[in-house]
């Protein structure tokens, strides 16, 4: 449909408009549009402009450092990277499977993280667009504006995020970049005091999450056409599911549905991702473009994250969230929903599920005692894991040498899976809303609304290194030349 908008012919005759930086998202990205004289959109691209270098410099490090290092990929979902690394390294440390108590503690941490990240995204970042309108003045279209106009809603968002962060702190020692999971298990139990105080807040968190679902559903149902069609890109859906088909954020096998809902692949072992996934490199973005090799680059890309997960699973294994999922499915009249804005409702359903799981885990006294570290099993040299991070499927892959140093690291992060879908969504929105019009700030914000819906994490998507044929000079505070680089 809009795939032809990826690269325009005669690019140097066109006018360039940039949205730089893309704001109210995590990380560093920009959008460029190329327009002809009549204002028709000829090209639209979401560029990921940052690089980090993690995959490269993880190599050569002792493997036990890795779960602590990789969480610095992303300050919004550090726990996902922390746990994905620990899971991949369990077998390498001779510690697989981890003891049941460690598994529960990791799940508690992970579901706390789903809560805080989903709350952050909906309330702090995305909701101003949805509550005030896409063309509301930018001075109020943010969390401060939300706090002024809807103090009750803003407060709930802040408190939900806080609850998730407190769970992470109790299981890892810090709210951001703690140390809880280690290869083979965990390094701490949950203290009785923490368990009691978190449990005392859990019922409230569940009921606030119900209100969040109600708000997202209300927004969606009050403008059904907008929520169905805005940034709608039909594609397959990919996520982990549990053996019985249930939604699971921590473990499972991969399922791929086509755009109409038929299951294309079932029970795919994440450890064999290289058998079916390939990644395309495009010169204009540091983020790669993965797709299912058998389906090819045109048809093999897919969506991940809440919209994929909620429609990919057979059911959600907690009653309130499953009830909410049924209502969501009913809204789509039984067909798969592909509108970008449908992500928000699905995301709030997941937050409710996470709140229910957290509450139930906090009822379990086993979190306070018993074995939490498995050691002495056979040491493997390679480990691959998948986890459902807040933004979608996350793959970590490590090889470790005889010296216990990492010899290979490959990461496919959630946002990378959504790369093509996000680019298609902005092209669809550009054609529908911007084409042939004189561009205002509010119109341009439509593009960002579509990107935000995916809740992209543009920091963790940029773990590779890049290079451009340019000269840069770095001067110190007094103007003296520190470094001059010439690239060809």
């Amino acid at each position: 449909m809009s795939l032809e908008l990826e690269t325009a012919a005669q690019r140097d005759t066109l006018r360039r408009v940039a949205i730089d930086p893309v704001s109210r998202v995590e990380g560093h990205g920009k959008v460029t549009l190329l327009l002809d004289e009549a204002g028709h959109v000829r090209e639209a691209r979401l560029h990921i402009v940052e690089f980090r270098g993690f995959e490269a410099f993880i190599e050569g490090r002792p493997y036990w450092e890795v779960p602590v290092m990789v969480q610095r990929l992303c300050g919004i979902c550090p726990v996902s990277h922390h746990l994905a690394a620990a899971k991949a390294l369990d077998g390498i440390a001779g510690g697989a499977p981890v003891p049941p108590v460690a598994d529960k503690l990791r799940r508690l941490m992970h579901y706390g993280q789903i809560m805080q990240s989903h709350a952050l995204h909906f309330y702090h970042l995305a909701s101003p667009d949805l509550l005030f309108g896409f063309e509301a003045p930018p001075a109020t279209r943010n969390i401060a504006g939300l706090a002024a106009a809807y103090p009750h809603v803003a407060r709930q968002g802040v408190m939900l995020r806080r609850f998730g962060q407190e769970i992470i702190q109790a299981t890892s020692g810090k709210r951001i970049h703690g140390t809880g999971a280690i290869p083979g298990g965990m390094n701490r139990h949950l203290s009785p005091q923490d368990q009691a105080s978190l449990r005392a807040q859990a019922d409230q968190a569940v009921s606030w999450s119900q209100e969040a679902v109600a708000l997202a559903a209300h927004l969606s149902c009050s403008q059904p056409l907008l929520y169905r069609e805005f940034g709608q890109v039909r594609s397959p859906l990919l996520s982990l599911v549990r053996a019985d088909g249930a939604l699971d954020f921590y473990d499972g096998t991969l399922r791929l549905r086509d755009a109409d809902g038929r299951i294309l692949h079932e029970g795919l072992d994440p450890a064999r991702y290289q058998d079916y996934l390939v990644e395309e490199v495009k010169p204009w973005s540091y983020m790669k473009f993965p797709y299912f090799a058998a389906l090819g680059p045109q048809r093999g890309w897919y969506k991940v994250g809440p919209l994929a997960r909620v429609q990919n699973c057979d059911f959600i294994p907690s009653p309130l969230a499953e009830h909410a999922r049924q209502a969501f499915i009913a809204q789509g009249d039984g067909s798969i929903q592909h509108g970008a804005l449908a992500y928000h409702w699905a995301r709030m359903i997941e937050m409710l599920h996470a709140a229910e799981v957290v509450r139930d885990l906090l009822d379990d006294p086993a979190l306070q005692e018993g074995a939490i570290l498995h050691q002495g099993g056979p040491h493997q040299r390679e480990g691959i894991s998948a986890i459902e991070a807040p933004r979608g499927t996350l793959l970590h892959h490590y090889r470790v040498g005889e010296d216990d140093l990492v010899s290979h690291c490959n990461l496919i992060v959630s946002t990378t899976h959504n790369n093509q879908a996000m680019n298609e969504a902005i092209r669809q929105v550009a054609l529908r809303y911007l084409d042939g019009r004189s561009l205002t700030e509010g119109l341009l914000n439509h593009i960002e609304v579509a990107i935000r819906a995916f809740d992209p994490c543009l920091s963790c998507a940029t773990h590779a290194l890049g290079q451009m044929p340019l000269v840069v000079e770095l001067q110190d505070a007094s103007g003296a030349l520190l470094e001059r680089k010439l690239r060809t």
Partner: protein
Amino acid sequence: MSLRPKPRIATVSLGGCFGCHMSLLDMDEQLFELLDQVELDRSPLTDIKTLAPCDIGLIEGGLCNAENVHLLQEFRVRCRILVAVGACAINGGLPAQRNTRRLGDCLREVYQFRPGLVHGQIPNDPELPLLLDQVRPLHEVVQVDYSLPGCPPSGEALRKFISDLLAGHPPRLTDGLLHYD
């Protein structure tokens, strides 16, 4: 009500992970008190994309590319008080681990020679900012007024730090708020 305009705060993430920005939000309900007292200017939390003259600029992340350098210089010019927030801004942080590797080798390895790549090539579009060979801390390029350590500093440390600055005296953090991890 006083007619004095509220102090303006701008924030930016250069080569950072957004963890320091998340720590700002970790002041929880006290965030609302802060938002009452100040005006947020350019920040990942707003859609303001050009920087106005500000009282305080909070910088997360070190310098990884040319655009980071330009942005930092702009913040220095526009902000009365510039704060390096977190390990990355202060000394490069974890991303500076790449300083021990040759850029070109890493590029080829990640974008060209990895298994499972289609059209392996090093991204080189003019829209992508030029990388610096080494990740550098802020103070090597501009004068920094304050450094707030931690990876990230806690929400409470940020709150205390900012409220001291707003009150017009040098920030003082007690032991519990000062940490380097």
